[in-house]
């Protein structure tokens, strides 16, 4: 029985405003409990909300970047339920007239592009944090009231990998817009999923389960993979799926049903009487549209077009906005028309260095001209590729230019035929067996001999030249 997977993702993102959605408390992360609160976000009797202008602007910005239709008339609603992290026991959210809807996001699925529909993007306020102890729970309201954007996809995602792609693409876009830190560890980006399976070709959706507690993109991918397998096995064995909420357990790598029996929640939505509605006119939309920079996908396609890079390479370079900026400057500065060499350096050694230092390529602060210069050294055989990597590390650590480092560490590549000839002759003399092996047809022996010359020259010999010299010498 062949099944296909249907996934919908719901992402909640903290907007990076200075103050909360409905009051002037700071949104900074990590401060002492209940130190960033006021009567409004605490829901004290008599308090009233007033919407943060920047939160609304950011929300419109994201909606436009996700190709949504921003609604001209939008309002807030109360979502009523009781929970200790919700001080008013209702959340100010949006129900039937959300800020925007009907957008899309393009991702890679395999080698192709796939369009994932976005049902809606709306604004709401976040709840507080609960710390569970043995008999009691502790409540910290610092996070209460932080503006949240809820981004709901259509159930167009058909695999855990696509879900992962969707999440990383979304994060990339949000970073470009500079509206959120998108840090899952700090809780500024949260993701829930709805997943179901159905027989291939079937039109109606299968029973879905809701997955929560996925604390990283990888966890989301793993959780979805597990859940799909669980559902497949269950259906295959003749069972049926119960519509429920399941939590991902990252230690045991399993999903578990939540223990409380969830009655269908009746949120009793009604229009928020404390907030008059909002009218978003075309001028406002145009104004905000202007603040949207070139987004990752456009930039990626432009890199392909203007610099001849492959889509795959370009995609890596544009993922982070700052890196994309840095990369583009490098690509521009590189004098050749064929840009692959510098692209390879960015995607290869620089990305490696950045990852090992847990930062972005741009954070390495390698001056662009210095990088171009380094590559130039390699291209004219002044140093070997291997040596260049060492030089790069030094450049990052000390900030010294390549030429200094090459001189100090004596890394200049030896291409002088005379010097190398001498070394080669010595190596031939010292390794008769290998010589014999080569002469009797074993190609590897040549590489061994090249290696020996490299050793003799502390790695500085130009391996290509060495190889040619050895071949010549061994011919007779």
């Amino acid at each position, binding site marked *: 029985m062949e099944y296909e997977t249907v996934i919908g993702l719901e992402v909640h993102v903290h907007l990076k405003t200075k103050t909360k959605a409905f009051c002037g408390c700071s949104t900074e992360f990590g401060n*002492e*409990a209940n130190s960033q609160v006021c009567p409004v976000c605490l829901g004290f009797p008599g308090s009233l909300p007033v919407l943060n*202008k*920047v939160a609304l602007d950011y929300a419109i910005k994201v909606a436009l970047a996700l190709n949504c239709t921003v609604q001209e008339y939008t309002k807030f609603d109360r979502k009523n339920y009781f929970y200790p992290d919700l001080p008013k026991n209702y959340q100010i959210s949006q129900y039937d007239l959300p800020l925007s809807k009907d957008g899309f996001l393009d991702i890679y699925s395999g080698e192709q592009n796939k369009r994932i529909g976005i049902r809606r993007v709306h604004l709401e306020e976040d709840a507080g944090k609960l710390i*569970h102890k043995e008999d009691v729970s502790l409540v*910290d309201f610092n996070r209460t009231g932080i503006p949240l954007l809820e981004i709901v996809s259509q159930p167009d995602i058909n695999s855990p990998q696509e879900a992962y792609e969707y999440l990383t693409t979304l994060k990339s876009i949000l970073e470009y817009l500079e509206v959120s830190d998108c840090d899952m560890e700090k809780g500024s980006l949260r993701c829930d999923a709805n997943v179901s399976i159905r027989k291939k070709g079937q039109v109606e959706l299968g029973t879905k389960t809701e997955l929560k507690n996925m604390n990283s993109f990888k966890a989301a991918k793993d959780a979805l993979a597990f859940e799909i397998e669980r559902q497949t096995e269950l259906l295959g064995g003749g069972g049926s799926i119960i519509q429920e909420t399941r939590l991902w357990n990252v230690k045991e790598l399993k999903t578990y049903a939540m223990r409380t029996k969830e009655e269908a929640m009746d949120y009793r939505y009604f229009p928020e009487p404390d907030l008059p509605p909002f009218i978003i006119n075309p001028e406002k939309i145009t104004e905000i549209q202007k603040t949207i920079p070139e987004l990752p996908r456009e930039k990626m396609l432009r890199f392909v077009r203007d610099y001849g890079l492959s889509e795959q390479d370009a995609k890596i370079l544009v993922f982070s906005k700052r890196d994309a900026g840095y990369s583009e400057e490098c690509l521009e500065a590189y004098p050749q028309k064929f840009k692959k060499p510098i692209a390879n350096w960015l995607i290869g050694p620089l990305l490696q260095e950045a990852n090992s230092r847990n930062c972005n390529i741009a954070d390495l602060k390698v001056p662009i001209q210095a990088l171009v210069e380094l590559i130039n050294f390699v291209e004219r055989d002044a140093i070997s590729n291997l040596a260049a990597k060492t030089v790069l590390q030094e450049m990052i650590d000390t900030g010294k230019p390549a030429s200094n480092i090459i001189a100090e560490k004596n890394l200049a590549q030896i291409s002088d035929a005379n010097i190398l000839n001498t070394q080669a002759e010595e190596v031939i003399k010292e390794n008769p067996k290998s010589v014999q092996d080569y002469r009797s047809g074993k190609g590897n022996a040549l590489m061994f001999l090249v290696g020996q010359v490299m050793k003799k020259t502390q790695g500085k010999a130009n391996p290509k030249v060495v190889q040619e010299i050895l071949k010549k010498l061994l011919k007779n």
Partner: protein
Amino acid sequence: MAITKETVKYVANLARIELKPQELEKMSGQLKDILGFIDKLGKVDIKNISPTSHILPINNVLRNDHPQESLSADKALENAPHREGNFFVVPKVIE
């Protein structure tokens, strides 16, 4: 419309209010009368009438993203029935 005791019990639970049996009995009767009276609204012709959720013709009330002073944790927790350090304390949320 008739409102049954079961409905009242269900709604009281939604509203997180515990009603004693006599209360439930009495309240069901009173609510039945009140709803009976309210039902006269069914006679009004509301076709093509838009609802009024906000009586004032104002829109787009916004404030600037400027930080304001927050309460100190002590002030925030001053009225708390149960407090531990700078946290509010509630009975365990059983999950």
